[in-house]
């Protein structure tokens, strides 16, 4: 009995964790290239969820297709916001201003969504929510199977992109050393744009898959992003492998805390772990050696 519960919650944890990974990877990529925290990232998650919802309900399209739509909406909006606001700000060379701008953009997006979609939570149900696969006493909904397949494929693709393609290598080069990468003829602005678009697209896509779990309101992304920040730190800022590992750990913590302790304690446990990590290993689970310029 207990073994089944532990296994059942392990699956739930991995499902949740893989979605957190998608959100946190975007944050960590942006941080790696820009050394900047992006608070508006939360709203790409929410927007992706709404995009998928309306695409399913208004167009009547399938759920899988609407995940793709959420991906594209995230990408397009990420491009627009980076081009119109963050790029001009970066030229001013101050690190606090872009941070505040991301807060401003976040307030703007949340309240635009509030004006359009209203404060009442949307019930996001897909045709896969109630179809259940059963094996060895464990229940897995098709919804969760889809989430695991789609997110693990996306993460694998992103990982391969970062490791093996020229652009991915350029991206890592920029996050290791801006100036030297620039000297090697890498166009930083294009890469920053690319990072932003990928990150926002991932967030949008994660939103479409998180929506059935979340209470879908215009402010739904905030609770996710707060955990994503914790994941980014636990994994080590800018570190892709660490982020994947940390995301899965946080997903598991969440499902086990819900099962064995109290759902209200999730954030406390996650952030206590974060503070502990910062005290013991501030460089994250898998640390890269980084020299600091004096």
């Amino acid at each position, binding site marked *: 009995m207990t073994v089944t519960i532990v296994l059942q919650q392990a699956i739930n944890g991995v499902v949740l964790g893989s979605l957190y990974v998608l959100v946190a990877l975007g944050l960590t990529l942006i*941080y790696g290239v820009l*050394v900047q*925290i992006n*608070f508006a990232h939360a709203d790409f998650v929410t927007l992706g969820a709404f995009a998928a919802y309306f695409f399913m309900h208004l167009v009547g399209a399938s759920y899988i297709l609407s995940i793709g739509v959420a991906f594209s909406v995230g990408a397009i909006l990420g491009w627009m916001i980076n081009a119109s*606001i963050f790029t*001009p*700000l970066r030229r*001013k060379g*101050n*690190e*606090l*201003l*872009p*941070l*505040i*701008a991301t*807060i*401003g*953009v*976040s*307030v*703007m*997006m*949340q*309240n*635009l969504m*509030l*004006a359009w979609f209203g404060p009442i939570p949307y019930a996001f149900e897909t045709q896969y929510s109630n179809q259940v696969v059963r094996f060895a006493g464990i229940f897995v909904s098709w919804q969760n199977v889809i989430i695991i397949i789609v997110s693990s494929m996306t993460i694998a693709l992103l990982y391969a992109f970062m490791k093996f393609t020229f652009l991915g290598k350029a991206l890592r080069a920029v996050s290791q050393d801006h100036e030297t990468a620039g000297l090697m003829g890498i166009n930083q602005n294009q890469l920053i744009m690319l990072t932003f678009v990928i990150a926002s697209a991932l967030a949008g896509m994660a939103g479409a898959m998180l929506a059935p779990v979340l209470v879908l309101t215009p402010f739904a992304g*905030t609770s996710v992003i*707060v955990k994503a*920040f*914790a994941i*980014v*730190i636990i994994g080590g*800022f800018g570190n892709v492998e660490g982020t994947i590992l940390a995301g899965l750990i946080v997903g598991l913590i969440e499902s086990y805390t819900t099962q064995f302790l*109290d759902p*209200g*304690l999730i*954030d*406390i446990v996650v*952030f*206590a772990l*974060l*503070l502990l990590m*910062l*005290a013991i290993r*501030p460089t994250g689970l898998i640390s890269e050696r980084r020299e600091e310029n*004096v």
Partner: protein
Amino acid sequence: MSRRMKYLLAALSVFVLPLIFNDTYWRTNLTICAINVLLTLGLDFILGYTGQLNLGHSAFYGLGAYVSTLLIVKLGVPFWVAFVAGIGFAGLAGMFLSLFAVRLRGHYLAIASLGFAVIVYQILLNWISLTQGPLGIYGISPPPAVVIAGRVVADFRSLTAFFYLVSGFTFLVYLLLNQLVRSPVGETLTAIREDEISAASLGINCAAWKVFAFVVGSAVAGAAGCFYASFVGTLVPDAFYVTEAFNVLAMVIVGGVGTLIGPVFGAIFLTLLPEVLRGVGDLRLVVYGAALTFVVLFMPGGLIQAAHLVREKLRPSGPAS
């Protein structure tokens, strides 16, 4: 204009304000402004003078509010004792976080303090036997009236008296912090902000001073929390969610970080902006977000720098003051 004149002028305008705005709505806003100014002063001391990016200011605000209120409601402690206790507790919490965070830099500190704020918020929300969680605490009474020789001098049930109380305290904090940042202590702190390693090489104990700034800033936030609780009369954890910390941060940056007067105007500007925008209806917070974004886009030094620029344009020949 000498500094003393400026202080006098500021005191005078604080005195006149509630007389000009004599309806309940605007007097409430004035007091909220004063509380927010107090919050920004605390954060600016931490961020602007030692360069520690604190995203958890809402935690100290909330702790001040809850500790003082619980002492009053549960233990019947007199208001001013609870007020001091609230400030002390917020300061201690700041010391705890900063002792722990003192070796963290930049964004690590930012996320650590954000995490601290999330934990405090969740504790306020989930420790229902103590804080009543999301139901909140109701009917918190204002500070007791000041009675001298049998005559009521100030009754804080009146909005005007409460405004004078908060703005008077804020003014005092401003004066003290202003003295502090212009003293050698202030120079030490800015030296740490500009370059910690060079400061350490001059024999400055950076860690100790960073903790000091953090304690002062969070204690000031605690005071703001005490005033908030007794002013609004109800306490719910949602008032101290992390977005409140972002709001205060925005006020500091929009006003002009690293000056004390800038955040004062930033707080007033961003507190009143959503109120002035009520005419826009549902879209007012959209306009607020847009305004926030545009201010940082086009006025990178904040309101204070924009004011300096305007003054220089008006007086092209005179020396910049």
